């Protein structure tokens, strides 16, 4: 498709601002922009067409199955969109007086409470804008806690080798050394290793549980004990919370800090890559370290609470991604306690069902126990045919489904990380299995079909290497 700049014609307009109805002010030349920005010049119709056509090049949850592991691409209910669009939610300013936004504060308060209940944590902030931002905030809280105790030598954060890249990156941003801990042959944190690794420098551990293999780490209580005994804290990466709602609470499992990915577990749309929201919950002893403000309630009035005395400060402006919070809250109301539990159950059922079916075609490591909401399969045996995991999933595009996550977690070679989510039906899963079977057959009979895939997408396989070498990062 043409770039929007390429269809621009000087002099065209797509929007007319209101007429000036007061005296005109003449800005002196010293401040004035010399050359106008080269923005496109188009009619409203041109713009609508351009973006409508662009949108039709996209795959999305509203288009089909999207089993992107670790990302929980569940269906995003439309009622949430209706609610977020209410004028009373969308057209309010963060600095208007509290008494003029009681409904907004009530919603945030209720959401905090609901997340506390689900996670078993004692205090909650809704400020972080995404999962990684939640991680950042949570680890900053841990750091602040240690420093508050004058415990300055703790400079190591333990992170499993199966962890998401945001975990080590978060540790670094917070000034920690990221200490990698190996997984054992069952895909769990290697307890013996862990015992060796902990030391007085240990600030804590960042754990994803179920982990990125989709396995619940059965040693979690033991891990908790080891870390706590060493004076460290436990951080819970809640990206996989969709697996355990109504089944277990990180707070009960020994975690001190937890983040949620509202855009994953609580069905808020992923928006081509955000906005998300990454609230964090902490145990009572960490409450005073939370960023400000949180939302409090007193005498049936809601207020912004700036009282956390050891606060890490802020991690962004204002109070969080409010309209994402509205969607998540609408979802919680709609699902209810019973529905959220059922969501986790069906998410796990779907993953186990799909794993059972796919294991007839692809190798599935770590399959001695039930998986949780996702699982990892590998196409490694197909390397013999010259077929890589990447080829395998590119071929899926020709069949109209979105591929799973590939090459993550790093500890499984040529892996596909498959998360069906609870909103997909058996019918959809069965069709997906058929596609996997077909492609596996093609891999052996006609590997070229995969190596050259995709064939029928709007563009075919794109040259990543060229993109990184001949940097073209903007239109000129």
């Amino acid at each position, binding site marked *: 498709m043409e770039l929007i700049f390429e269809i621009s014609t000087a002099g065209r307009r797509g929007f007319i601002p209101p007429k000036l109805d007061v005296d005109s002010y003449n800005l002196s030349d010293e401040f004035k922009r010399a050359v106008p920005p*080269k923005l496109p010049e188009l009619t*409203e119709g041109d713009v609508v067409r351009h973006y409508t056509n662009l949108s039709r090049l996209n795959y999305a949850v509203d288009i089909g199955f999207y089993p992107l592991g670790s990302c929980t691409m569940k269906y995003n209910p439309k009622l949430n969109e209706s609610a977020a669009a209410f004028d009373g939610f969308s057209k309010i300013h963060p600095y208007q007086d509290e008494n003029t936004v009681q409904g907004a504060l009530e919603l945030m308060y209720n959401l905090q409470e609901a997340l506390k209940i*689900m996670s078993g944590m004692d205090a909650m902030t809704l400020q972080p804008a*995404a999962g990684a931002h939640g991680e950042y905030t949570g680890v900053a809280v841990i750091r602040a806690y240690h420093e508050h105790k004058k415990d300055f030598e703790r400079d190591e954060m333990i992170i499993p080798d199966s962890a998401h890249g945001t975990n080590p990156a978060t540790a670094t941003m917070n000034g920690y050394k990221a200490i990698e801990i190996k997984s054992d042959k069952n895909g769990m944190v290697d307890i013996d290793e862990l015992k060796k690794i902990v030391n007085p420098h240990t600030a804590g551990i960042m754990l994803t549980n179920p982990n990125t293999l989709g396995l619940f780490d059965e040693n979690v209580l033991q891990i908790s004990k080891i870390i706590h005994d060493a004076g460290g804290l436990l951080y819970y990466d809640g990206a996989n919370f969709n697996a355990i709602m109504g089944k277990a609470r990180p707070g009960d499992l020994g975690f001190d800090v937890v983040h949620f990915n509202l855009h994953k577990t609580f069905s808020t749309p*992923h928006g081509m890559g955000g906005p998300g929201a990454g609230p964090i919950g902490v145990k009572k002893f960490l409450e005073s370290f939370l960023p400000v403000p949180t939302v409090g309630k007193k005498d049936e009035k809601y207020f912004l609470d700036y009282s956390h005395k050891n606060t890490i400060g802020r991690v962004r402006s*204002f109070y969080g991604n409010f309209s994402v919070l509205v969607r998540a809250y*609408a979802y919680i109301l709609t699902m209810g306690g019973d529905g959220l539990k059922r969501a986790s159950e069906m998410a796990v059922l779907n993953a186990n069902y799909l794993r059972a079916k796919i294991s007839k075609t692809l190798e599935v490591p770590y399959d001695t126990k039930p998986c949780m909401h996702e699982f990892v399969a590998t196409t490694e045996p197909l390397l013999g045919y010259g077929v890589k995991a990447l080829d395998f999933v590119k071929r899926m595009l020709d069949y109209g489904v979105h591929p799973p996550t590939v090459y993550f977690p790093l500890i499984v070679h040529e892996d596909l990380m498959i998360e069906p989510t609870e909103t997909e039906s058996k019918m959809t899963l069965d069709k997906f299995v058929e596609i996997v079977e077909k492609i596996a057959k093609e891999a052996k009979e006609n590997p070229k079909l995969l190596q050259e895939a995709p064939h029928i997408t709007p563009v075919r396989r794109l040259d990543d290497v060229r*993109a990184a070498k001949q940097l073209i990062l903007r239109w000129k």
Partner: protein
Amino acid sequence: MEPYIPHTDQDLKEMLETIDVENVESLFSTIPSEKVINSIDLPNGMDEFNVLSKLRKMALTNASADKYAFFIGGGIYNHVIPSAVNQIASRGDFYTAYTPYQAEVSQGTLQSLFEFQTMICEITGMGIANASMYDGASSLAEAVLMASRYTQKYRMLVADTIHPEYIETVKTYVAGPKIEIEKISHDSDGKISLKDLKSKIDDKTSCVVVQYPNFYGVIEDLKSIRGISKDVILIVVSNPISLGILEAPGKLGADVVVGDGQTLGISMNFGGPSFGFFAIREDTKFVRTMPGRIIGETVDVDGKRGFVMTLQAREQHIRREKATSNICSNHALGTLYASIYLSLVGPKGLKEIGELNISKSHYLLKRLEKTGHFVRAFSGEFFNEFVVKTDLDISKMKKVLFKNGIIGPLDLSKANDSMKGHVLFCATESNTSEEIEKLISVLEVM
């Protein structure tokens, strides 16, 4: 709940048989049994009609801009948003997609982000922009980290005319890497003190951070600042909607321009989400220290143009603890709003909107001064907001205004002792002259 979960009893039966387990519960056997819970202590699910009724009631208790006149800014602004923006951006093909990991079926996302990067470069006058950060404040924080990463220096200077919440955010972020932070004071014109700046810059300084227009609405003199801060990275926080009439920071010497994109077609949303933009001068070494997703142009196997995420070796999923940032999901949807907005308004529209803002705010100031209750606090030129000192009881004034359908101004007295009796007024193209007259008429009788 049910409308989102497809499992029928029949499905369940067949699926359990396939897995060869008795019941769903047994799939959770790996959770330590003493920690297993059986329910969530929340009310049961509700139907759509009742959920929406409940939420509508909450929404109606908020005083919103469809019913009130807003004269309040300070980082979030009530601008006019063309209908087309929301209507196109609310296509599920966009908002229910995720990060474009599979480029071949994500060209909509990728091309729009590439175009967005171009637009940000154009309005800021910079060479390279990324595909967004969370918001203005966190963009700034990341810019500061980048400056230290690039220069390997750990001391920064920040103007005290920067949005206080941005400063607070930066403070949080520099705690980990232990970057020293020092404030630059401002003069009576509301601009930063060049003298103070000059005196504080040293060879340990990684960067200088200023805001343009600054928190008090005043337009900083970037050229002079640049002149003084020769060997450091100059980071400018900017409000993009002002750049239709104000000179682009890139033209005045900025190395990094960041800011919040809310003003480009995004509803106020009680402060979020919007998105942060992040632009740097054209520099292929600098770009490798940049945080966030970056979209690049390339070709497919048939030679057809296409777009991909590029320079991923900077990012957490590849570089892990050595990544330039931990950011993963950014705020791509916000960039779509901005791109549609900028495509609609175009260069002429952006200029006109700038002129409307500056004219309305100056007219408002004039009218406020005439009431006798307000005195301009800073002499520097401003864009669409300004500080005035008032002899009125601020909270009483705000209450009376609210009763008359007006929200604002922002009370600065609480934040800072030196700002006692000061408020920040804002006027944009959405404030009609009738609204201004209404505001004045209420104030006149106080």
